């Protein structure tokens, strides 16, 4: 069947709708090609030009491959692959001749719209995909509706009904489809490059750039009451190595030794579950003094997973805020006292002077903090640049800095006086969602602080930022007296409506993460355990899924079949008239759906004049039964007899 060119327009719109979310990520060459394909198609639709010949189409396909090679260097992988399919869908419009070509483009659209989930799995994109699927289905209706008897509204209505009817199947697939841990395909993965979050090193400026991001780092559900704001130190990474500018993790292979010594005070255990947004790294965030974790814990009390976290990741942990980590060995002492050679002489001199005056390490720590407090240090998001002797420059000249400056300088002063010390980066604080029972920790809560070794207490947290800006720790980032223009707008806005909206949206996001994205292998197993089925393996799950799909499909089939059957039982007339029509169909005469019985009779008589009498009486009995008020069995019997004896001749 040939396709009218004006029907291209909805298909063109469809491909654009499919691709809309990925346009912002596509390279310029690809966008340029897509734009020119679109204009070209519009010219074809308006009749100003014709579909290009095969040779040109091959050249264009070549241009597609070249644009991908120029932009990505390869045609394999997620982004190049989806871009290629997208561009080829546009190209297909140039050779659309038959219904088959259109169907190909539409089905490709269904696939392409699902690839949006490679990039993000937010509820918004899911809603968008849902809408696009409805639109694509309405396109299928256009091309199966040969009479053009539907308008846009009806098509969308039918399509919506079809999509809604498929929800039960979707749920079966969702609950029963075996979850595969790790990525489904071993394709080159380029998703993590653009993820925001705390990096694995700290230099001046690395954290205050995060502060202006309102993105959620993770969400936490506490089993009991959450700890106070000032105790919410979410440890991410411990940085021990300093080169004069940047604090880094230890280069040495991680010394994994889980047996950690705790001073157990009256243990008040805090149980919490974290839903970590993908950050492309291996470490997990936890409160201090991790007691129990399902993942590997290093000597520095960092929880670490085996693979980078590129999808939403949820885990449960237990911390004991009153405990202290007393594990330390000689190698560690050495490591946490190291300073770069020949730098920051003035600071070292200051450290030595203060330590002499203090007498012990505790007093010394207090006097360093006091030094920050009494001298005119400022807490600011836009500190001036520092020179080669960065610590000297900061302590004696600029005196303006953000948490990374204070924690770095503090650890430097500690080490200079012989106190083992290290920098910890992570997040501090968090906001309870007043509409739901969980806490949101945002990128803007990113923070850096210090831990020092005291012989009698073990590793002790000291936050020099608190000395400069106590309200940062007690009331959170928005109350730290920082420049408001640098903070995310919604954090500083006072509008009640915006406040409500923000938490409602986050609440929705959280539920989506919890129930949809978070429904992983483990949750699936838990669900079946709840139903009393233990240790279900993937093969069983899969076969159950197949059985459930078959059953529900069978039920639908039965229902449709049953409906047809009861109708034919009720309506003997239609049934036997149908038999009559089929007999004629075999003889080569097909009744059109819009043809009335009389019109059909006229044609029958014309072609099979010998059947005139029989065909007339069948038509008469049928009309009597179907349209008359008399549905006596006598008529039915006559109709049945006549139809059974009927032969087209």
């Amino acid at each position, binding site marked *: 069947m040939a396709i009218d060119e004006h029907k291209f327009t909805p298909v063109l719109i469809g491909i654009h709708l499919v691709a809309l979310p990925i346009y912002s990520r596509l390279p310029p060459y690809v966008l340029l090609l897509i734009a020119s394909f679109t204009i070209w198609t519009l010219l074809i639709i308006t009749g100003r030009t014709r579909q290009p010949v095969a040779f040109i189409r091959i050249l264009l396909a070549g241009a597609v491959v070249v644009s991908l090679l120029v932009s990505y260097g390869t045609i394999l992988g997620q982004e190049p692959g989806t871009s290629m399919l997208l561009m080829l869908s546009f190209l297909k419009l140039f050779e659309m001749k038959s219904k088959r070509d259109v169907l190909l483009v539409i089905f490709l659209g269904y696939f392409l719209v699902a690839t949006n989930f490679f990039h993000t799995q937010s509820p918004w994109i899911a809603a968008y995909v849902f809408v696009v699927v409805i639109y694509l289905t309405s396109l299928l209706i256009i091309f199966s509706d040969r009479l053009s008897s*539907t308008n846009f509204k*009806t098509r969308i209505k039918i399509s919506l009904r079809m999509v809604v009817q498929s929800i039960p199947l979707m749920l079966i697939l969702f609950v029963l489809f075996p979850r595969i841990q790790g990525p489904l395909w071993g394709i080159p993965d380029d998703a993590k490059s653009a993820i925001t979050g705390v990096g694995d090193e700290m230099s001046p400026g690395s954290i205050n750039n995060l502060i202006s991001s309102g993105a959620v780092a993770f969400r936490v559900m506490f089993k009991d009451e959450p700890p106070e704001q000032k105790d919410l130190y979410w440890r991410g990474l411990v940085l021990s190595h300093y080169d004069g500018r940047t604090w880094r993790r230890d280069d040495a292979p991680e010394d994994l030794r889980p047996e950690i010594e705790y001073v157990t005070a009256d243990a008040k255990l805090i149980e919490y579950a974290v839903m970590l947004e993908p950050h492309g790294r291996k470490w997990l965030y936890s409160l201090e003094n991790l007691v129990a974790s399902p993942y590997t814990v290093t000597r520095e009390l960092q929880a670490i997973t085996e693979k980078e976290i590129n999808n939403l990741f949820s885990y449960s942990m237990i911390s004991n805020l009153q405990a202290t980590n007393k594990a330390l060995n000689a190698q560690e002492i050495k490591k946490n006292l190291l300073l770069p050679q020949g730098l920051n002489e003035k600071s070292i001199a200051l450290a030595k002077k203060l330590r002499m005056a203090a007498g012990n390490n505790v007093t010394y720590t207090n006097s360093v903090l006091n030094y920050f407090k009494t001298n005119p240090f400022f807490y600011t998001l836009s500190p001036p640049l520092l020179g080669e002797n960065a610590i000297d420059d900061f302590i004696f000249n600029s005196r303006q800095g953000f948490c990374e400056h204070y924690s770095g300088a503090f650890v430097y002063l500690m080490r200079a006086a012989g106190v083992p010390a290290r920098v910890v980066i992570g997040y501090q604080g968090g906001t309870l969602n007043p509409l739901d029972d969980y806490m949101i920790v945002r990128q803007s809560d990113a923070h850096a602080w210090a831990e020092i070794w005291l012989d009698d207490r073990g590793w002790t947290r000291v936050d020099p930022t608190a000395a400069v800006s106590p309200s940062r720790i007690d009331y959170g980032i928005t109350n730290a007296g920082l420049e408001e223009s640098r903070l995310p707008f919604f954090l500083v806005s006072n509008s009640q409506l915006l406040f409500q909206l923000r938490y409602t949206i986050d609440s929705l996001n959280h539920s989506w993460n919890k129930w949809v994205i978070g429904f992983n292998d483990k949750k699936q197993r838990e669900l079946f355990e709840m139903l009393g089925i233990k240790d279900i393996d993937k093969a069983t799950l899969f076969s159950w899924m197949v059985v459930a799909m078959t059953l529900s499909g069978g039920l639908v089939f039965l229902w449709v079949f049953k409906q047809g059957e009861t109708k034919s039982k009720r309506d003997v007339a239609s049934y036997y008239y149908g038999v009559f029509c089929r007999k004629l169909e075999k003889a080569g005469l097909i009744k059109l759906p*819009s043809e*009335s019985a*009389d019109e059909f009779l006229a044609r029958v008589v014309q072609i099979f004049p010998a059947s005139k009498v029989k065909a007339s009486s069948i038509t008469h009995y049928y009309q009597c039964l179907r349209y008359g*008020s008399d549905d006596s069995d006598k008529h039915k019997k006559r109709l049945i007899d006549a139809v059974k004896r009927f032969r087209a001749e």
Partner: protein
Amino acid sequence: MNSSNSNLARASTGLLKQAAKSIAQVILGKDDQIRLALTCLVAQGHLLIEDTPGVGKTTLAHTIAQVMGLDFQRIQFTSDLLPSDILGAAIYNREQSSFEFHKGPVFSNFILADEVNRATPKTQSALLEAMEERQVTVEGATRKLPQPFFVIATQNPVHQLGTYPLPESQLDRFLMRIHLGYPDKKAERELLQGADRREMIEHLKPVVDGGKLQTIQKQAAKIHVADALLDYIQAVLEFTRNSPMFEFGLSPRGGLALLNAARSLALIEGQEYVLPEHIKIVMASVVNHRLELCTDELDNQGKTAASYISETVPIP
């Protein structure tokens, strides 16, 4: 249907067939149009005849009135015709020193509104309102029109000069619109050879009268309609409302018009129930003036809204 009822129906059919035969003696070669005009009359609807002058619009109306034994009034519409010329007016009576209402030509059983699109919209709407309400309100007093009440309006093709085309909302008030067209060769010859039509009309004997016609009309309303047929009408309505081929779909009034016209036709045909066939026969005259095709495509193929519907909507 009980036997007395079915006897009545049979009698009605007989009378209608006889009437059709009488009319056909005067109006030659136009059996289908005569049948439709009678259908319209039996369905208590009004008829619009659209054609060029001289094809026998007036003669047809006159003949029907004569055969049906109805009192007949012809109103020639002109651009200076006033509403009071149709409805009547209150005139001061000097002797009784009071106003007295003089009934206009509309107070008749059968009205021929000739060249209705020559009058101004104001005058047109006076008639059309009377058609719809079957009563007339002048100077605050409402007066019922006689029963039965039947209007045949004739209209020149819209593109001719000096016409005020009836708006769609007014067209909807006519149950049917038909075209007469030129007679075929044989009929034309007979016409040329035959006697003066006007004289022939005068010699025609009425087949029924107003009272009998009302009985027949009641009989038509009793014709059986099966669910399957209502399904078909609804399918037609839904199709016209959803198809992009039409500017607007058929109104509920359009649906009722189809049903009533089909019932009357079934009675005329002597059928005890309505068939999809009947719907198809009345379709063009009932539907074409209510629907506007969006594309020229069908027009170019010589298709009308009705033929498009008949060929597309499946019969349930």
